């Protein structure tokens, strides 16, 4: 790449818009040509100066405050809405499986603690209360017809 060709590509190079091959060729030329290297540095400085000059104005600070409040209100739902959203959130599959498992475990536990009426077998607990008559200790008034 000679100086004339590079001069035509300097803006594209500064804008990072050259393809890989052209960028490599341009960089190699710049490394060995002080005149073009100087021209490239000047261009970069001018482009930077243009950006700074164009950015001089900014909105008043009140604009930022008002805009931030509007955006925050839009992206952060109020606490009531957040609760509603969490209730409306679909229950994941594993949640349903866990809930069903918990119900099954509770049913199993209650079934085990219940005495089996079909085949009464003396348990150690039954032996301990053998001969106990509940009516003697807690007499319940009986309805006599």
């Amino acid at each position, binding site marked *: 790449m000679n100086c004339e060709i590079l001069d035509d590509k300097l*803006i*594209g190079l500064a*804008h990072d*818009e050259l393809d890989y091959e052209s960028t490599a060729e341009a960089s190699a030329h710049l490394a060995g040509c002080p005149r073009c290297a100087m021209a490239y540095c000047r*261009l970069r400085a*001018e*482009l930077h*100066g*243009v*950006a*700074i*000059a*164009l*950015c*001089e*104005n*900014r*909105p*008043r600070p009140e*604009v*930022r405050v*008002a*805009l*931030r409040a*509007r*955006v*925050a209100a*839009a*992206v*952060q*739902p109020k606490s009531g809405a957040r609760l509603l959203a969490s209730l409306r959130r679909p229950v994941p599959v594993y949640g349903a499986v866990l809930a069903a498992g918990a119900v099954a475990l509770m049913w199993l536990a209650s079934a085990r603690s219940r005495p089996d009426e079909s085949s009464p077998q003396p348990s150690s607990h039954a032996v301990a209360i053998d001969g106990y008559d509940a009516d003697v200790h807690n007499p319940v008034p009986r309805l006599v017809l």
Partner: protein
Amino acid sequence: MSVGEPTDEDLVAELRGGRVPAFDRLYERYERRLFAYVFRTVGDRSLAEDLFQDVFYTVLVDRSFDPARGRFAPWLFTVARNRCRMHARRAGQAPPQPIETPSEADLGLSSDATSVVRTAMAGLSHDHQELIVLKQLGELSYREIAQLQGEHEGTIKSRLHAAMKALRRRMAEIGEEG
């Protein structure tokens, strides 16, 4: 943007997840750049502030921009361009012509170099000014500018190079005159 800094798109996603501090970072990145574009286009500070707020709010909150599918900056400037044009149509004006905006420079606060750039910009055509602003402030690629303006990438490249050359030539002339 330095390595490790969240991208604009990351920040938009964070913000939409309810993390408002992401707004502050995006605002700092685009406050001057977007406002400069809008102000240059409509030429009235109060109107520019209204449009600036409207554009920023729309792009951040409206789900038509998907941070997983595209860059934030081109979308922001596309919406800004459309809003400015819509405003001009409603107001029954001709398409907006960028003007030389009053600035801190007018208060004597800016350097000579800044005033040279501003004067040189004022001497360029509307198309050239817009291209330079979209490239230097919006940091849009040639392809993104082409999409925004509905032109071919090659056309944008030629026009932008011509615009940059014209600007540099004018800046050199003003420098020599001064």
